[in-house]
């Protein structure tokens, strides 16, 4: 019980319910086993014994049928009927042996097998004799066959039927036994289940009781105690000490500790009175200290009086120096105004310079543009000159061909003259014409020569012009480059003058601010001057107050001296 109490509540619960679950699991497993067992038994019953009974009955039926057929055969005289009967007997001959073999496979009990082999041996003899009987019937010796059939064959048949009925009985008995066994087994398992259920129920009740004792009862006790303490302030209630290590034990211990603490706090009040007495003593000693302090205060107030007198003289001196400062500030202010004016002028100039430099930049841009235009024009001129030179070349070609023509006309003239000479006196006029043509040809030749000379000069001149155009182009390019450089320089100049203008503007602004500051300083100084005057006045008041304080100190001293503590 003590060990159980020491376990935590969770463990207790787990243990209790675990036990119940274990019992339930055991019951389930046993039930399952029993059911499987019974099912198997039923299966065997159904398969082995029932089939065995059916087979034996079938065997008996087959044997009976054979026997009946033989007997009919022995009784009849009709040949056709005999034949059909013989045929039937032969057809059924294999059936009984198949049935015996099946039985042998079905039931493997030794007793059963022994009886089966007995049946086999008798059946062998019976069959052989039957063959003989059939042979006799076929021969027509029915009398002899009848003797055989009613004699030894009947005996054999009876024996077989007896054994078969034995077999049947045995099997039925085995079946009954099995059923009884099953019944007994199921009865047993029923008892077992009842016992198990009873045990489980009992265990559950026990568990509930145990939990009640272990958890609920001590908790109830503690809650009643807590009501007592909270409701009636009954601090004398006793708490039973339980030497337990679980949550309830811990709760009890904590509760007990709490109660003890509550009891302890009531004892503190009595100590308070004692403390009050002690404090009163302390107060009297403090008053003594106050006396000393007042003495010190009196001394200090007289010191303050002296100091305030000194401060008053200092204030007068300060006022004088402030007046001097005020004059100086006025001078500085004037200087600042002058510098502000100058800075404004500088700023204006700088703005002017910026304007000029911007104009300059514009002019340079225009120059660059103009240069570019000139360059284009120069290029056009160069192209024109080149074209001109090409054309003069073609003129040269034309001149050459004209010269050639002149040559040829000269030759023609000569030929005409020759013809004229051949004609003699009649050709004289023609000779003159030929002479004229010749002189014309020569003139044209001369003219072409002159043209050629002139053309040569023109060509020279054009090539010189081409060169000049080329040089002009180069010069223009250089000019463009230089004007771009000039533009850049002016740009830089513009930027720096802009910066200078900005700086000048800033200077103007700051000098204005300086001026304002100076004005403000002047105002401030005046205020200080006034304040100095006021200061001196108030110093006087301070002096008066110090005197009052001094007197007060003396009075206090007297008062403290009179007090009794």
């Amino acid at each position, binding site marked *: 019980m003590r060990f159980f109490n020491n376990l935590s509540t969770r463990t207790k619960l787990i243990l209790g319910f675990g036990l119940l679950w274990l019992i339930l699991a055991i019951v389930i497993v046993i039930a399952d086993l029993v059911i499987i067992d019974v099912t198997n038994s039923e299966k065997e019953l159904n398969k082995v014994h029932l089939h065995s009974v059916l087979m034996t009955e079938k065997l008996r039926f087959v044997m009976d049928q054979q026997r009946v057929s033989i007997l009919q055969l022995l009784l009849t005289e009709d040949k056709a009927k005999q034949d059909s009967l013989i045929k039937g007997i032969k057809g059924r001959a294999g059936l009984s042996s198949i049935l015996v073999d099946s039985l042998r496979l079905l039931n493997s009990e030794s007793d059963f097998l022994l009886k089966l082999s007995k049946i086999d041996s008798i059946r062998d003899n019976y069959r052989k004799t039957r063959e003989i009987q059939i042979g006799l019937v076929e021969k027509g010796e029915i009398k002899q066959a009848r003797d055989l059939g009613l004699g030894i064959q009947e005996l054999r048949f009876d024996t077989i039927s007896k054994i078969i009925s034995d077999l049947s009985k045995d099997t039925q008995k085995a079946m009954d036994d099995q059923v009884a066994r099953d019944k007994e087994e199921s009865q047993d398992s029923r008892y077992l289940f009842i016992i198990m259920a009873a045990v489980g129920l009992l265990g559950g009740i026990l568990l509930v009781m145990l939990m009640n004792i272990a958890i609920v009862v001590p908790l109830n006790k503690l809650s009643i105690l807590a009501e007592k303490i909270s409701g009636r302030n009954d601090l004398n209630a006793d708490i039973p000490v339980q030497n337990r290590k679980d949550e309830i034990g811990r709760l009890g211990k904590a509760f007990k500790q709490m109660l003890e603490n509550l009891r302890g706090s009531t004892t503190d009040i009595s100590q308070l009175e004692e403390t009050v007495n002690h404090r009163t003593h302390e107060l009297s000693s403090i008053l003594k200290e106050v006396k000393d302090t007042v003495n010190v205060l009196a001394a200090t107030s007289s010191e303050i009086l002296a100091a305030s007198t000194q401060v008053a003289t200092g204030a007068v001196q300060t006022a004088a120096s402030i007046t001097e400062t005020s004059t100086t500030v006025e001078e500085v202010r004037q200087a600042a105004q002058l510098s502000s004016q100058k800075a404004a002028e500088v700023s204006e100039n700088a703005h002017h310079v910026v304007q000029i430099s911007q104009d300059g930049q514009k002019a340079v841009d225009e120059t660059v543009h103009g240069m570019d235009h000139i360059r284009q024009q120069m290029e056009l001129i160069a192209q024109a000159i080149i074209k001109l030179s090409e054309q003069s070349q073609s003129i040269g070609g034309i001149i050459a061909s004209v010269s050639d023509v002149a*040559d*040829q006309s*000269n*030759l023609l*003239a*000569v*030929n005409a*003259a*020759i013809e*004229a*000479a*051949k004609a003699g006196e009649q050709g004289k006029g023609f*000779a003159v014409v*030929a*002479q004229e043509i*010749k002189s014309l040809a020569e003139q044209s030749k001369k003219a072409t020569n002159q043209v050629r000379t002139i053309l040569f000069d023109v060509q020279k001149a054009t090539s010189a012009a081409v060169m000049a155009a080329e040089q002009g182009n180069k010069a223009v390019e250089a000019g463009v480059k230089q004007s771009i450089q000039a533009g850049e320089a002016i740009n830089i100049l513009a930027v720096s003058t802009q910066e200078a203008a900005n700086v000048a503007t800033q200077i103007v602004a700051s000098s204005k601010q300086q001026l304002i500051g100076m004005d403000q300083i002047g105002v401030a100084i005046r205020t200080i001057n006034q304040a100095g005057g006021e200061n001196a006045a108030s110093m006087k008041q301070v002096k008066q107050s110090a005197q009052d304080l001094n007197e007060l100190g003396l009075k206090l001293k007297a008062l403290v001296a009179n007090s009794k503590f």
Partner: protein
Amino acid sequence: MKKEHKILLQDRAKKLSMEPGVSDSGREFMDVITFSLSTETYAIESVFVREVYPLKTYTLLPGTPDFILGIINVRGQILSVTNLKKFFHLPEAGIGELNKVIIVSNGLMEFGILADVVHGTRRIAKNIIQQAPPTISGVGADYLLGVTSGSIIVLNIQAILEDKSIIVDIEVN
């Protein structure tokens, strides 16, 4: 204007239109073609000249003497061209144009003579042609008629045409 004045003026004009300094009376004249070859001026009697032709292309003939320049095609007629300088064994001095051919003919023989410039026809009085001394140049006296006062060398073109040495008949083995 009086009639006699008019006749007088016409007379004067007729006289002025005549060639000055030379008169036809009692003199024999010959019509010549003058041409220059290098620095010298030659003259050929114009009756032997068929025509003047500009030399544009010519074809060299192998196996001919060096005075034969080649052959040319004049309106379908093939003619040989003779370089007189080579023929006369004159030195090759100066650069000429050598682009004219004077085609000479006596009815039987016909060939071209190379010339720089063909000046034209003129009439020379036969009596002013002086016999050139044989030492003046290497030209055989047979081929020269003489030299005029204007230092024109008058060739005896008839002799040249009839000269056998100008006929080239060489068989190459």
